């Protein structure tokens, strides 16, 4: 397998993990919205309410930065990162 194929395989793996986490915070939680809202969560808000106001939104921000760092590492590992000429 060529260097490029390995790079793409790893990138695809990272994509799958990223999308899985995205799925949990954007869809998974809200499948059980009614049940989870009965429980008190962070700062005293009901759990589901907190996720829609802050939790999921914040998780997305963190997820994107995490993804960007991981992808950069993968690019460097296979020598595909950009030269710093700009």
């Amino acid at each position, binding site marked *: 397998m060529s260097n490029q194929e390995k790079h793409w395989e790893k990138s695809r793996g990272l994509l799958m993990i990223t*999308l899985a986490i995205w799925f949990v915070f954007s869809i998974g939680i809200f499948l059980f919205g009614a049940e989870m809202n009965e429980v008190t969560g962070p700062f005293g808000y009901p759990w589901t309410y907190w*996720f829609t106001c802050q939790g999921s939104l914040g998780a997305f921000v963190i997820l994107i930065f995490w993804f960007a760092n991981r992808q950069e590492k993968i690019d460097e590992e296979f020598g595909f990162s950009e030269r710093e000429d700009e």
Partner: protein
Amino acid sequence: MKQGNFIDNLPKIYGIYTGGFIGFIIIMAIAEQMGMTAKAIGIAFVAFTVFIYALIGYLSRTAQADAYYVAGRQVPTVFNGMATAADWMSGASFVAMAGGIYFKGYGYMALLVGWTGGYVLVASLLAPYLRKFGCYTVPDFIGTRYGGNLARFSAVVVLTVASFTYVTAQINATGTIASVALDIPFQYAVYIGLISILLCSMLGGMRGVTWTQVAQYIVLIIAYLLPVFWISNKMGAGFFPHFMLADEVARIGELESQFGFIKNSAADLATVPKGLAGITKAHSAVNATPWAFISLALAMMMGTASLPHVMMRYFTTPSVKAARKSVGWSLFFIFLLYSSAPMLATLSKLSLIDPNLSTGIIGKSIAEVQAIDWYQNWNQANLMFISDFNGNGTVELNEFFMGGKAVVLATPEIAGLPYVISGLVAAGGMAAAMSTADGLILAIANAISHDVYYKIIDPKAETAKRLVVARVLLVVIGFAGATIAAMEIQGILGSVIWAFDFAMSGLFFPLVLGVWWKRANRQGAIAGMLGGLAAGAWYLVWVRTGGSGFLGITQLTFGIFGSAVSLVLMVVVSLLTAEPDKATQKMVDEVRVPSGKPILGKQ
């Protein structure tokens, strides 16, 4: 303006700008104490900020294609994040969102999740790869990846339908705010809004829009957060509302069960002015089925990843790496406003309905409420209404009605904040609507000037001529949008949501599969774009004309049907026709790695 020098000095320039703006707020506050009228403050806020944007637009003028289309590809990550956030957060986000949450609670908050979660898709599936491609517009990517004028043209069609639906709503919003702040009729205010918008974008194209959007973000975020914090502190709800409103949320639930949601008769409701609504849904309880919530969130997320005016912001970063990080910063800046909207809705609702608070009106006598200053003001502006349906002389929860916009616009006044805050909020709403309208008009004009005029009609056109065409189109599209906005056909929020559905119906899978599926070919992409758009549009018309719909897909989520049709058509047609040639497959390989030259090269 010297570019290299300018880029290095950005933090300093915008630091001074922010300080200057805060200084302006303080001067206005002092002027208010000295007797400046509310109307004069409103005019000063809107006029001052619009003047600054126009000045930035003028200073960013350019005659180079690279600067006009992609701001010279040198916008630093964090600043591009701010510009994207302003580009993204429209008049609807600023003025209407807290109101929607106020009235509909949990079911409506699917939009918060949808309008943020979409950025994960942008960052992981598309933005870095499209940046590597080195295109000027989104149809530029489609046209080069799939090849042929028909594919390129189909992408322009989808882009125009989606963005135009969106832009009329934004011009409508600028018109609404300008007409309130400057006290002129809406039909004229729309054109004042339009001229302000064009001043930012016409001379400098993407470069002008970028630097005004950063300035607009700073205004709109101050204008949104300052009242939320102030009101929260004034009510004694907590000095950092985001972490401290649990008691208030619980208290609203308590009051709701105490008052109950009494359904008004149709005859009673007929007396309520159009556009106003009462509180009929629980604030924090789960009041929607999982599918209703998830389908709306999903439609908004996929729509986010297909809207060209957002995607093209990532063409302006210096590198692929920067494009990825920039998506993170965009979402961070969006998060600051979106996480505050539910807090504003909570504070606004509690201050109105809690009988224990001095501002509460439920339980007071009708005559007493009708004598309150702010009630009279907003009643006159057609944004508030009370009526004694049961004839007992006191205001009940089901007898109080408000317009969606009033939550953001009127809450500062209800909570007893000085008028300077209301002026600031008007300037913020104007900034939000202008920045989005700018991005959208530019996306349409660039697609038509670059992809239709330059790439299809006259590939030999000189740069100067191309930029003249681009600017003429900008004005024409702006005026077309304003003319439709002046007719006031649809509400602001409804048409914004439709724009997302149109975009995802036609563009989501052709864009994503263009990067992630080598086998995708021209025939498949054309079938996916046109078939998806047609299917989505058909479904919308069907449901609007009394069709029952299926699978719980409503007129707000028709993009789910459109994009499913698009996916099926694209895969089936691609597999039935020949695979893309070697050169195209090699091109896809190159797109997938950040290093090396952009596919389209520097022009």
